[in-house]
Structures are given as structure tokens and as C-alpha cells.
């Protein structure tokens, strides 16, 4: 039982890591007032670029760099549309998601002739699990031994990065000048502008940070959690990250917990498949699959209350007031 729990939590950590990265990415963007439905596209684009570069150059780190570059480039397109040209944030996001979905496969086919996939990655082309010091030694210590050696140790570096990014994000958002301005520009860009700060440049920086984090999330998918790129492999994670962002009310720590919750519910659903409930017989697998979504909705309706986003989110900044 305890073992199972540890394993489920372990799975939770693995599945949540990219969600956390992407949700924090969304946090930077939306705190600055830019709605980002293109998290999905950025993850996918970065997953492709990272896997492709890693396959070509033989290093996961180079892959990561390329993943980030690709994702930031997409973020800049989003910024160009939403910030510079006051375009609709959602339309821009849908556009980016669509372009990436097609472009990754097109380029993949063109470059690798593997039906849009990248070659399978191995060895240095991937981020492999890291065993933390004393993990083996601790193995047999009751309770915490398991937690340390099986749950905390044995993940790849990007997982640790994802979790470290939570306090880092908190610190940036609440303790730095950039964070103060970031929060301000999503609430009232006019106030930022009249304070002598460029709204445009500030928002661009925010979407670039968003791009970097999505880049890491994408690289995680294709070079850490998996070993190569497969078309549409982001499989809706960007949308789940967005949901987690709203769930966590645009605050770093609650957002992390929302991601962990999604990850955990997923792990639970995986375990529950095929379970036979006395009296009811086997629960249909589809019911189990929906469980995470249903539970999320119930939690949302029961406890979370109203989620109010940054006031100016989604609204293009025009100097004259509306």
C-alpha cells in the first residue's frame, strides 16, 4: 500500500513537471496581461526542436537550447500579434497552435523522413534520471527512506528544475522590480505607462520568459520523459496547464499544487483501471479516464471559489481609455 502510494506520487511528479513549467510560463504571460492559449503550441514546438537538435548534435543540452529558442520565437510571434499589433490574444494563440501542429510534422518529414518523428534518442541525447547522494543507502530507512530514494531521488534534472522554478517564480513575481511591474501591467497597464515604464517592452519580456519556460517543458517531453518527438505529443498538456493556472488563481505555489493534483489524479486513474467495485462490477475504463476531469470540476465547484484573473488580461493596451 505504502509502496503503491510512493509509486503514484512518483508518477505524479513525472507527469506534473511539464505542467508546472508550462503553467508557470502561462503565469508570467497572463500576469503581464497576455492570455496564452498557445502554451500547447510552444510545448509542441519546443519538443520538436529539442528532439531534432538533440538527435543531430547528440546532446540533450543542445536540444534544450534549441527547444527554448523555438519556443521563444513562437512567444515573440504571439507578442508581435498581441502587443505590437493589438491582435486578439486567443486568435493568435489558436493560430500558433495550428501552425506548430502542422509545421513540426512538415519539418520532421522533410529532415528525418521518419513520418514526422525524430529519430529515437538515447544516452546523452536524453536527460536521464539522477540518483541523489545516499539514495541507495537510505533505501531501507523506514518511511523517509522510501520517500527520499524513490520519490525525491531518481528524476531527471528538468524535473528538479521545474520544482525549483516554483520558489524562483514566487521570488521573481513578488520580490523583484520586474515582478512588481509584471503584476502591475496585467492589472492596469495605464498605471505602468504613466509611471514611465514601457508597457510594450515589459510585456515582451514577460512573453519571452513564458517562452523559455515552455521551451523547457517541451524539451522535457521529448528528451527526458520520452525519447524522441512524435506528432501532437503534447496531447493537450498546454490546455491542462492553462486550467491549472486558473485553478491556482495565477499564483505560483497554488498553481504548482493544481498541477500536482492533475498529475496525481492521472496517476490514480491509471491505477484504478480495471478495478472491480463490489456490487457494481468492473467500472468502465472510460469512467476512470474521466475521473480526473470530474474531480477537478467538483473541487473547483466545491472549494476554490471564484477565480479572478489579472484585470487587464486579454485586453490590448491602447493609450486612450476605453
Amino acid at each position, binding site marked *: 500500500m505504502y509502496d503503491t502510494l510512493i509509486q503514484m506520487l512518483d508518477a505524479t511528479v513525472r507527469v506534473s513537471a511539464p505542467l508546472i513549467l508550462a503553467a508557470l510560463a502561462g503565469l508570467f504571460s497572463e500576469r503581464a496581461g497576455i492570455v496564452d492559449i498557445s502554451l500547447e503550441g510552444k510545448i509542441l514546438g519546443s519538443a520538436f526542436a529539442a528532439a531534432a537538435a538533440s538527435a543531430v548534435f547528440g546532446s540533450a543540452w543542445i536540444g534544450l537550447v534549441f527547444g527554448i529558442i523555438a519556443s521563444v520565437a513562437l512567444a515573440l510571434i504571439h507578442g508581435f500579434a498581441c502587443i505590437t499589433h493589438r*491582435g486578439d490574444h486567443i486568435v493568435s494563440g489558436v493560430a500558433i497552435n495550428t501552425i506548430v501542429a502542422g509545421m513540426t510534422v512538415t519539418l520532421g518529414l522533410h529532415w528525418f523522413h521518419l513520418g514526422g518523428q525524430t529519430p529515437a534518442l538515447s544516452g546523452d541525447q536524453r536527460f536521464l534520471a539522477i540518483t541523489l547522494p545516499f539514495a541507495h543507502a537510505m533505501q531501507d530507512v523506514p518511511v523517509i527512506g522510501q520517500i527520499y530514494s524513490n520519490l525525491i531521488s531518481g528524476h531527471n534534472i528538468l524535473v528538479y528544475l521545474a520544482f525549483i522554478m516554483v520558489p524562483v517564480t514566487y521570488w521573481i513575481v513578488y520580490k523583484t522590480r520586474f515582478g512588481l511591474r509584471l503584476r502591475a501591467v496585467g492589472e492596469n497597464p495605464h498605471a505602468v505607462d504613466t509611471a514611465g515604464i514601457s508597457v510594450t517592452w515589459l510585456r515582451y519580456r514577460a512573453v519571452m520568459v513564458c517562452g523559455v519556460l515552455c521551451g523547457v517543458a517541451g524539451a522535457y517531453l521529448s528528451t527526458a520523459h520520452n525519447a524522441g518527438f512524435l506528432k501532437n505529443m503534447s496531447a493537450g498538456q498546454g490546455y491542462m496547464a492553462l486550467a491549472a493556472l486558473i485553478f491556482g488563481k495565477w499564483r505560483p505555489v497554488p498553481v504548482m499544487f493544481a498541477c500536482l493534483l492533475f498529475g496525481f489524479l492521472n496517476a490514480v486513474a491509471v491505477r484504478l483501471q480495471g478495478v472491480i467495485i463490489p456490487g457494481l462490477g468492473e467500472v468502465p475504463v472510460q469512467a476512470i479516464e474521466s475521473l480526473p476531469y470530474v474531480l477537478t470540476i467538483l473541487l473547483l465547484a466545491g472549494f476554490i471559489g471564484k477565480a479572478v484573473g489579472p484585470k487587464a488580461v486579454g485586453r490590448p493596451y491602447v493609450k486612450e481609455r476605453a
Partner: protein
Amino acid sequence: MNQAKVPVWVNIALIPLLNITLAFVISGLVIYAIGQNPIEAAGYMIYGAFGYSEGIGYTLYYATNFIFTGLAVCVAFKAGLFNIGGEGQAYIGGLGVGLVCLALDHTMPFIVIAPLAIIGAAVFGAAWAYVPAYLQARRGSHIVITTIMFNFIASSLMVYLMVNWLKGTQNMSLNSRTFEHSAWMPYLHTLLSPLGIDIGDSPVNLSFFWALLCCFGVWLLVWHTRWGYQLRTLGTNPTAAKYAGIDTAKVTIWVMMVSGALAGFVGLNEIMGVNHSLLLNFAAGYGFTGIAVALMGRNHPIGIFLAAILFGALYQGGAEVSFDMPQITPDIVVVVQGLVILFSGALEHMFKDRIEGFFIRRAAAAQEK
């Protein structure tokens, strides 16, 4: 005030044309980059979408779906709600249509089935939107999250129902049995051929006219009824809505249900119009694309109709290109679609501000003289 000085044709023709052109130029570069001839591709694309009656039929058939989902997004958006759940609502709406057809096709004529199927689509689509709407209105649950979740749940529900209850017996295929002809939405070509008009075999069917009717209906409903007045007030200024004594929760719920019903009509076109049986995955992203359609159409039925035709043409033209130029894979067509959304949707202001500014300045200069 500004708009008054800009000739109408600039806004409705020149600027959209420039945007689309730019989208196609960039698409051309992409196609060129992978070693194909963009001019040839464009030729196939345009010919495929508009060049002959059957192609036009396909364009209209796709457009039908986009009109429904676009209107669904639009109605909710006008009330300040972002209905990202069109996909699931369309799916479940189709279930409603399918159930009506399966239940009645042996016993009832088309005249009876058609209105019941419309009601079925509307009721099921609306029901699927009701829960998120209720939770938003009464519990403050964010509608974006709940509708995303409901999309997933709809897929699971449909697989469950199809596999365990609705699957036809004949083979592995996950279709229900094929409906009797009484439950087929007539194709336009079958309707027109007795009149001696041959428009080729395309799936465009009566649902297209229902979509047009819905455009008109939405226009009336949103802009010309007090209910529409209330929802627009809610969408633009919720405080004013309270002041005006509008029951915002009630309006929210009803708006979402209308939105869900509209999305549900996709089922009419797909299930009753084309597939003639209940099956999986027929919603195929129409719900999501509806978001782009609605926003590109400026959330107005006429705009949505035009945007839907554009997307219908992209789908159909795209299929034709990959048919005739196999190196142009469907994925490239997806890229082209994305670029069109980007340039004529998200970057619509890129030329607009400059061009409008030019005309305003010219008008002002003329005035001064």
C-alpha cells in the same frame, strides 16, 4: 467616429485581402522551402475550393460546421463568456441527433424526424453546456476550465456509449447501424437533380440552410431582442447589467445553453447529413476552429459566415492540394490554415491602422481645404 471617414470597401475588402495575401505569401515560402511549387499548389487549392460545383459543395459542407461552432462561440462571447467547449457540445449534440434517428428511422418519415433531430441536437448540446454554465453562474467555477474538462469527458462518454450500447453488430467498425433513408438529411445534389441541376456529388446538405437560418436567428436574437440586449449588456458591463436588474446568473446559463445548442447542430450536418450513422470523432476539431472563426468574423453572423466559408475553402482546397500534389502533405495544409488565422485574425491591425490612418488623414485634409 473614426470609422466614418474610412470608405467601407477599405475595411471589408482591401484590408482582409491584404491580410490573406500575406498569409498566402508566407505559406508559399514554406511550400517553396520544402521544394514544391507554391503557385501550382495555390492553383489546386483555389480550384479545389471554388473551381467546380462539387468542390464548392465540399467547401459549403465544411463551412456549415464552422458556422455552427463559430456562432456558438460568438453568442457566448457576446455575453462575456469564453466557451472553449464547442468541441464536446458538438460531439454530444451529434449523439442527440443519432439517438433520435436510431429511434425513429424505421417508423417515422423525414418530416417528423428532421425537427426532432434538430431538437435532439439542441437539447443534448445545451445540456452539455448547462453544467459548466451552472457552475460558472452559481459557483464561480471558471468556464474555461470546466469546458476544457467537459470536452475530455464527452470523448470518454461517447466511446463508452458507442462500444457498449450503440455499436452496430455487423463488424469491427465503431459505427452505429446506418440509418434508414427517412433519417437522412437530403443532399443538395439530390434535391436539385430533379430540377435538372447537376452540382456533383458533394456532402453539402440541407443543414447548410439551417446554418444560414441560425446566422439570421443569432443576429436577431443577439441584436434585436431584449434577451440579446441583456446578454450584450452582461458581456460589456456586468455592473451595468446588475444595475439594469438583469438576472446575470440566469442569462449566463441560458446563453451557454444556446451556445451549446448551436455547437450541437454540427451533429446534424455530420451525423444526419453525411455519415448517416453515429460514430466517433466526427467533431474533429470543428469546435476549436470555431473560436478562430468567431473571432475572425468579429463576432458577427455575417463575419462568421464569411470566415466559415474561408475555413471551408481551406479545408476543401487543402484536401485537393494534397490529393493532386502528394508531397504537399495534410500537415502543410494545416500550416497554411494557421498562417491564415494568424495574419487575417491576430494580425488584422497590422495594415488596418496604417491604411485607416491614411484615409482619415486624407479625409481630414480634404475637409480643411
